[in-house]
């Protein structure tokens, strides 16, 4: 009985109203797809890093790490580690293949980052992960047993030659290399020609990273990366079951054993060294990316929320339009519960169909999103050969878990309403909508309360470094504003009648009248569109303010004339340095007045990866310019920090860890934990994970190695930066490649990176707006269908088709205008939340609030035009129907 009723009453109707059903399904699908796509995208960057990590770690169960690596002369004193298992020293990094290979890159090959950067950086054809291990000893730790070495001489070469490497068969195939071929690789600013002496089968590390993996002996790796005297870490493979390391031990040590060994090793390790599971580095990277990922996730939910508005919209319309029929059903003995079930069933069908479509669409969107975020992630965070991970079972599960229940939730209000329709409604033949149009003060209480809650939430601090309350405040703002929409439209309707008539004549008046009569159902569409528009406005204001701030900061702080960096950009886990010939070429150029060199290393602070930098404070004072946030006289604080156990920290660091000038930071140095006084906090918009900077003298005392990762050169008056740049570059030999930005180039590059970072943001918003537009079209379509009779009447009394169409299009544009008006107001409120709450809590940046008036004006016009366009199809339908009535 019930299923029959469902088929007759719901499914048939859905089939009849194809357009509305379809737009709703597509709306949900887009929402689900965006959420899934962002999940996949977020996973891709971390997972790329983690799979690489895991495969390179091999059977390593514990690793020993130290800030800036481990001085290799400490190794003989760590012989006691052998009681736990084999210990394998490792050099790990990244190189880029220079030119070479004839074969076209495969489909999975990372694309070079092009655009403006190409002018300064040679196209980075392909980055490869490089692992340097003691190839005599390491074979049991990692799954490299597929190494094919053809002759004994090749193995001897591999063991003794600093130019011998093993590459993966995949890479060899892809780029057309064979044993004995030369392969030029760039590390830092040095290009060395290596010779392929072995091939790795597609096992272990060769399997992941699309084969972009190179193995070499640790001695060769030390030389190539300019890390003589240190190793990056020690990998420890715990003894499995008492058999010798040489035997294939199937019994890997259990988790408890690893924990026990970890505790025992940690207790005995000298100061400055840390024992951890290899997965720890993955967790650190995950945390580092968390804020970035959370923001994307939050944005992706906007599209979903808009999609759910559509469900609410559709079911509400369906309920309103069919009050009489519902009354009939009730009169015939259908229970309330059954009526509720019928409409929830409709929502379930919509949700189910939307989810199914969304899963397929999500995969496609994910590829696009990975493409959009890859350059951001690799520029700002980690170098990773990101490819979109496959949809896992849990992704499908997640899609259904959010798609269907949320659709039901969205439909629950109108469905409940439907179940309350009395049997008498059939007789009365009218709906109660008219009574709800009246504006009551009571209707303002709920939104006011919600907005107050939003205000309260905005004042709460972050949760575990995440602005969860900030997001909640945004959500509350959106909900509160949505609840205000009917009232707003009501006011708008009253005040607009006159102007519309004057401006658009009779069509304007008609459009206004139609809309005023349909306020309740319109409110939903307007709210949906307004929400997505407000998000766009908010983000536009935030990004605009942010961009202005960064541009100002860049202008103030980038004072040097030339910036010199290694050919390969450093990222986490891929340190890149400059070598002596390049430094000399810069320092000895007659036009160069002063050179500041800086070095950055990764430092684990409070379990998080931060950047520890070394700079020449004296030179910063004489030539450069830092913008200090605190104390008032930052320059004096910087002067006092020279040569002492003091650091300055970036604003992002200060916010994240609650650090103020005068505080003491305990940092892990190679000599163990040491206290450093915080002298000042400076503005920095380049690194969101936070930067600690110490004077080079202080850095050298604790960390030794000062091989610079970058230089800043100040020119003497009268020297043209562009010319000095090309003179320095042309003076370098074949084996060295530096990238030199002039001041102007670097400013442009900073803003380019900035803009590319937000490309995904805009993409997500456009999707949300498209979904909302679908909602407008669907609503108009419904209105058109309902007003069939009115429209026929219009034609009968002499209205031209063109006029009828015009009425509908004007209605659409009015909806757009109303939505945009609300969107602007709510968006500005949200932008305040974004700038002062969410941004500060997740990234910790000071952003000067600025409203991009021109941009917003342009967007507003675009929205009105776009909604008018969305009205064209319903308008056509309207005249088509009317014509049908005519004849």
């Amino acid at each position, binding site marked *: 009985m019930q299923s029959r009723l469902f088929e007759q009453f719901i499914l048939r109707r859905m089939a009849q109203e194809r357009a509305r059903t379809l737009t709703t399904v597509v709306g949900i699908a887009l929402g689900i797809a965006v959420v899934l796509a962002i999940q996949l995208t977020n996973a891709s960057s971390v997972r790329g890093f983690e799979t690489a990590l895991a495969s390179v770690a091999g059977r390593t169960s514990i690793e020993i790490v130290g800030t800036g690596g481990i001085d*290799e*002369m400490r*190794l*003989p004193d760590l*012989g006691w580690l*052998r009681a736990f298992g084999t210990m394998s*020293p490792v050099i790990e990094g990244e190189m880029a293949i220079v030119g070479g290979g004839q074969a076209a890159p495969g489909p999975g090959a990372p694309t070079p980052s092009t655009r403006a950067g190409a002018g300064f950086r040679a196209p980075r054809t392909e980055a490869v992960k490089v692992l340097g291990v*003691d190839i*005599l*000893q390491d*074979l*049991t730790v990692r799954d490299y*047993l*597929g*190494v094919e*070495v053809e002759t*004994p*001489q090749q*193995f*001897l070469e591999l*063991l*003794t030659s*600093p130019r011998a490497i093993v590459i993966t068969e995949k890479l060899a195939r892809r780029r057309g290399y064979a044993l004995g071929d030369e392969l030029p690789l760039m590390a830092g600013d040095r290009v060395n020609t290596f010779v392929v002496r072995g091939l790795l089968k597609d096992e272990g590390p060769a399997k992941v990273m699309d084969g972009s993996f190179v193995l070499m*002996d*640790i*001695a*060769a790796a*030390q*030389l190539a990366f300019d890390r*003589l*005297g240190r190793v990056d870490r020690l990998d420890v493979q715990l*003894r499995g079951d*008492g*058999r*010798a390391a*040489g*035997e*294939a031990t199937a019994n890997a040590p259990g988790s408890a054993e690893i924990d026990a060994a970890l505790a025992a090793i940690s207790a005995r390790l000298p100061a400055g060294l840390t024992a951890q599971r290899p997965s720890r580095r993955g967790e650190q990277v995950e945390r580092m990316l968390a804020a970035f990922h959370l923001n994307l996730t939050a944005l992706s939910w906007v599209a979903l929320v808009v999609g759910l508005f559509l469900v609410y919209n559709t079911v509400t319309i369906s309920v309103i339009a069919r009050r009489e029929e519902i009354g009939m059903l009730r009169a015939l003995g259908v229970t309330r519960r059954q009526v509720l079930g019928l409409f929830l069933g409709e929502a379930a069908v919509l949700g189910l169909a939307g989810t199914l479509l969304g899963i397929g669409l999500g995969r496609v969107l994910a590829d696009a999103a990975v493409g959009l975020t890859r350059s951001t992630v690799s520029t700002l965070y980690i170098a990773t050969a990101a490819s979109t991970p496959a949809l896992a079972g849990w992704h499908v599960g997640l899609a259904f878990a959010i798609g269907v229940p949320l659709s039901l939730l969205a439909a629950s209000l109108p469905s409940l309403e439907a179940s309350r329709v009395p049997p008498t409604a059939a007789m009365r033949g009218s709906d109660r909508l008219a009574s709800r149009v009246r504006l009551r003060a009571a209707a303002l209480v709920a939104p006011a309360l919600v907005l107050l809650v939003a205000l309260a939430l905005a004042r709460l601090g972050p949760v575990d470094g995440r602005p969860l309350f900030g997001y909640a405040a945004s959500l509350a703002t959106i909900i509160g504003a949505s609840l205000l929409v009917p009232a707003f439209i009501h006011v708008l309707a009253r005040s607009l009648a006159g102007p519309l008539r004057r401006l658009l004549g009779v069509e304007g008046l008609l459009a206004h009248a139609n809309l005023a009569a349909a306020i309740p159902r319109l409110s939903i569409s307007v709210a949906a569109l307004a929400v997505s528009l407000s998000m766009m406005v908010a983000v536009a204001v935030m990004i605009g303010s942010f961009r202005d701030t960064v541009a100002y900061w860049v202008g103030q702080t980038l004072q040097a004339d030339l910036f010199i960096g290694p050919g390969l950009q450093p990222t986490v886990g891929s340190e890149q340095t400059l070598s002596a010939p390049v430094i000399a070429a810069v320092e000895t150029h007659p036009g160069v007045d002063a050179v500041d060199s800086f070095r950055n290393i990764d430092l684990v602070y409070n379990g998080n990866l931060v950047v520890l930098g070394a700079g020449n404070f004296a030179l910063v004072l004489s030539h450069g310019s830092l913008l200090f946030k605190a104390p008032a006289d930052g320059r004096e604080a910087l002067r006092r920090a020279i040569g002492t156990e003091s650091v300055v920290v970036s604003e992002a660091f200060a916010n994240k860890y609650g650090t103020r000038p005068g505080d003491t930071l305990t940092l892990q140095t190679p000599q163990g934990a040491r206290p450093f006084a915080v002298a000042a906090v400076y503005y920095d918009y380049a690194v969101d994970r936070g930067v600690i900077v110490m004077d080079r003298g202080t850095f050298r005392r604790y960390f030794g190695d000062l091989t610079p990762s970058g230089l800043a050169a100040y020119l003497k008056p009268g020297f043209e930066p562009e010319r000095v740049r090309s003179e320095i570059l042309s003076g370098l030999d074949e084996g060295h490649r530096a990238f030199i930005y002039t001041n102007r180039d670097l400013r442009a590059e900073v803003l380019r990176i900035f803009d590319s970072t937000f490309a995904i943001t805009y993409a997500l918003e456009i999707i949300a707006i498209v979904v909302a537009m679908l909602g407008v079209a669907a609503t108009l379509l419904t209105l058109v269908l309902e007003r069939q009779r009115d429209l026929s009447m219009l034609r009968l009394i002499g209205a031209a088709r063109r006029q009828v169409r015009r009425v509908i299009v004007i209605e659409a544009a009015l909806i757009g205008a109303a939505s945009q008006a609300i969107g602007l107001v709510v968006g500005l409120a949200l932008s305040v939340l974004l700038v002062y709450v969410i941004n500060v809590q997740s990234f910790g940046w000071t952003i000067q609030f600025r409203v991009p008036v021109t941009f917003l004006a342009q967007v507003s016009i675009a929205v009105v035009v776009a909604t008018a366009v969305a009205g064209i199809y319903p308008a056509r339908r309207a005249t088509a129907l009317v014509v049908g009535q005519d004849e």
Partner: protein
Amino acid sequence: MRPGAGGCAQGRRRQLVVVLVLALSTILSAADWREAAAGYRFAFPHDHASHPDYKIEWWYYTGNVETSAGRRFGYQVTFFRVGVVAAPENPSRWAVRDLHMAHLAVSDPEGARYRFDEKLTRGGPGLSGAATDRYRVWNEDWSASLDDQGRHVIRAASDRAGVDLVLSEGKAPAINGIDGISQKGAQAGNASHYYSLTRMPTRGVVTIDGERFEVSGESWMDHEFGTSFLEREQQGWDWLSLQLSDGRELMLYQLRRSDGTRDPRSSGTLVDTAGRTTHLSAADFTLAPTGQTFRAPSGATYPIGWTIAVAGLGLDLRISTPMENQELFTRGAGIAYWEGLVDVAGTSRGARLTGRGYLEMTGYKGSLGRVMTQ
């Protein structure tokens, strides 16, 4: 322990065989290394230390020891240094100049247990090495060195076997060969500088399968260095170090050619009770298998009974072992040799005498000469 079982072990073995083959090869950059030449004058203790100018060098300890209750054990600890590149171009400390190998074996005839282990490493930042200023050779946590009282301290342990022994030098070092050189092949350079400490009072601990035994007894140390040793047609050798009950010691080695004949460079040294040495050339002695054989886990068949006759000295000795399986089959290097404790029984000019010693038999699984001269 099935040979060839598991792709993992196999792959590793294959590679390390290659490494060893190359490391031992004499054609590669042999010119960079010094050859053993006649007229070498030993000076002690300095010559215990390393001689890095030569390509190949080893320190070899073997010994027969027993517990106070009379339970008998044999042990072998060997440190090899094999030069690969005399002057590496890479300044990294990890650059391979020498490869360091070490073998450790403990024999327990009563428990019928023979346990061994091996190491193959590079020097790196002092992880393995051989000092030149004083006697200290080490491979990770295995080491042999002189303590401040001039005693040899040997420490090596794995999961299966271990020794922690202190050895006095006993008699003065016996220089093997003629004029400071032990000729191994027809070519002048195919020789080594070779001396032995033939009866070293020993005390300490041996460990087997985790069981510790306090032991004492007598050890023998060989230290040999040179640049090229075997020639292509030399199949392997049989070597004996015997400590006789009359207070004398006898070292003999016989080089076998691939055609089955005895190489004329075979020789030996007899050390009398006062430590004076008598060189024995190939013509001075016979060393013949009794015909008793043992087929070892590696597949090689070893003659484990021998007779020795040194006509000029009136020595007639029979060599037997209480334990047949003392084959050191290095899975890593893929090279097998038999090295184990033996008993001596026989006569000296008619007078009965006994003794204990160590027997080493190489080249029964593939030609060692061909391997070393590839």
